[in-house]
């Protein structure tokens, strides 16, 4: 005959002995814990996040404003935007924008808008006085590390150059 207890006050297992509960870590464990806690904290502070930088240059006829990815992660896409203003009083028929190949070659799936006419060289359509031309470049992180280069904008004899520096996290 099986005994069945249907009492609501169910029995409790024997209590475990009590100790003074404290946390102890070995020096090696403490080091590992610092690493484990440090990474999420740094991530929360934005250390490993995407960020962009801006730079500007002026010449007699041009104002060039550049926004480019300062850092982003492997296989993610960063966007570079270059605004070219005609600050002169006459139209600019030909504005050439050229990116360093050793900078662009560090990325994959690179797309230029407007399309590049030669390797990493874009020509903007006629810019009227006060008008702004835009070059947009999409870059996918292909190689880890910091990649440096420059972008040059030329309208006739007027040239401006801006540095580029992008960190791709592994």
């Amino acid at each position, binding site marked *: 005959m099986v005994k069945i*207890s249907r009492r609501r006050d169910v029995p409790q297992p024997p209590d475990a002995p009590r100790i003074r509960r404290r946390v102890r870590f070995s020096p090696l464990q403490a080091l590992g814990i610092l690493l484990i806690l440090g*990474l999420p904290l740094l991530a929360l502070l934005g250390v490993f996040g995407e960020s962009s930088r801006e730079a500007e240059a002026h010449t007699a006829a041009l104002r060039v404003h550049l926004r480019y990815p300062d850092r982003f992660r492997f296989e993610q896409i960063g966007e570079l935007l270059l605004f070219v203003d005609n600050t002169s009083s006459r139209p600019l028929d030909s504005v050439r924008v050229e990116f360093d190949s050793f900078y662009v070659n560090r990325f994959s799936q690179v797309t230029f808008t407007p399309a590049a006419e030669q390797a990493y060289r874009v020509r903007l359509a006629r810019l009227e006085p006060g008008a702004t031309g835009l070059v947009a470049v999409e870059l996918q992180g292909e190689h880890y590390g910091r990649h440096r280069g420059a972008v040059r904008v030329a309208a006739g004899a007027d040239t401006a150059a801006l540095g580029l520096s992008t960190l791709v996290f592994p």
Partner: protein
Amino acid sequence: MDTVVRVVLIYLFLLVTLRVIGKREFGQLAPFEVVMLLLISEIVQQALVREDFSLTNALIGTSTLLALVLITSVLSHLSARVEAVTEGSPTVLVRRGALVEPSLNRERVTPDELLSALRKFGVERLEDVEWAILETDGQISVVPRRPAEKQVKPKKPRIV
């Protein structure tokens, strides 16, 4: 930053839901429960990493998860109350040979499952059990009754 927030949310969600559904569900990984675990990881994986398959993201996600596990374990160790919330408490299923029906029903343990667990401990009959306890990890521990407790006279060993 996104990854840290997503891992924290998923961790808290799983902590609460796994506590709510009870100890038994993942205590003994029957084939169906293994499949359930795989499905959960498959569903959660997309939400955790989104399109970012970089090593940096993987390290951040893993360290966030480990940090949460560590924080939970430290808090559970320091406070019995936190321990009871995060890990639950053992449930008595059999006491001195008697089935504790409310516990069996609350933990959804059938008599068949219980007897199967007893047999794994080499116990044949329910009346030979002093304690059968569903532990916080979902396993059933069995403490057989000692002969004195059963008031059984020791038998003479048979020599064949």
